[in-house]
């Protein structure tokens, strides 16, 4: 019996490790669902979401992003490349999903939405991601956001008013709730033609592969 004991102990620990790992995996695995038909963005709709690119593009890449999230910042730089590569075959949609762990994420989302009121959402989107490192640690982000608004030529008084306005707040909240209803917990979360991106494809090659697969299904440009 004593000869078997070390084997038993090691076996029990191995089983416990595999079991607890599997349970943890099940608990932590993202449960993002496909975008239901009722929530799909219609062709030419640029009001309910921020859309960039050809409205008739065969592929739509929808991002739920947080302006203070570094991986979202990295993805924003890669997104620029993708838009150039796929040109009129790709339409990009951005939705706000500010995470509570990021101190200034919500304010940044409000700044982007306030810029959107003046028709400059994407310019602010690009500046916020480009300057992410600078404002993320700033004590007074408002001043920086206002300076960005000035740089992209916004009406500053209107921008300040809109940042505190109900309309922008409601829009950010609506995006968040929509994201939560889809099971989103992390950012960036991407959908390609309303299907969530596979976790294993959360890298440049994987994203390209999924876009190409979507293009193969819908070849008409």
């Amino acid at each position, binding site marked *: 019996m*004593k000869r078997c004991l070390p084997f038993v102990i*090691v076996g029990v620990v191995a089983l416990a490790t595999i079991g607890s790992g599997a349970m*943890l995996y099940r608990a932590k695995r*993202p449960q993002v669902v496909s975008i239901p038909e009722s929530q799909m963005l219609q062709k030419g709709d640029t009001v309910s979401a921020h859309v960039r690119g050809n409205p008739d593009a065969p592929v739509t890449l929808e991002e739920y992003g947080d302006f203070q999230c570094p991986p979202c910042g990295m993805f924003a730089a890669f997104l620029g490349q993708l838009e150039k590569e796929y040109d009129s075959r790709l339409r990009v949609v951005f939705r706000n999903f500010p995470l509570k762990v*990021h101190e200034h994420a919500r304010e940044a989302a409000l700044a982007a939405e306030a810029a959107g009121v003046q028709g400059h959402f994407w310019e602010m989107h690009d500046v916020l991601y480009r300057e992410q490192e600078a404002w993320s640690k700033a004590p007074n982000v408002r001043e920086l956001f206002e300076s960005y608004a000035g740089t992209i030529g916004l009406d500053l008084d209107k921008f300040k008013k809109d940042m505190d306005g109900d309309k922008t707040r409601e829009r950010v909240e609506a995006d968040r709730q929509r994201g939560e209803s889809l099971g989103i917990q*992390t950012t*960036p979360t991407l959908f390609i033609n309303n299907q969530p991106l596979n976790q294993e494809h959360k890298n440049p090659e994987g994203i390209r592969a999924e876009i190409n697969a979507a293009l193969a299904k819908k070849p008409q440009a």
Partner: protein
Amino acid sequence: MTVSRFRTIIYIAAALVSLAGLADATYLTVQALTGETLGCGGSPDCFKVLGSSYARIAGIPVASLGVLAYFSVFTFATFAVFGYIRARIFLILTIGAMFLGTLWLLYVQAFLLHAYCRYCLFSAATTFLLAGLAIALPPGPDRSVS
């Protein structure tokens, strides 16, 4: 063959410490497999380390190698308690390899990524503790008490 009391205590301590490292490495492996380390929402201070290219070798999460290493330490320490002579040698070799790997990972965090992940630091502390226990082992093969 029985093992001296002092050695037995060290082997048991090594087995217990390796269990703590095993739990940590399992958690990190799960994080890598679910893709949590590739985005925000999980541990904000860890993504820089765990989401970096250094966190994977040929696509395999480094944390999963940690699971294998800690499990090996637990196995060898357990067998050493029961008097398996070769287990002691394998235990020391495994801990030595882990110590070197840990030094490299600390270098990556401090000088290449300029960021620290608390789970990785916990793993480093665990490995250092194991290295300390290995050093404390009296030289020579395990001998019978009586």
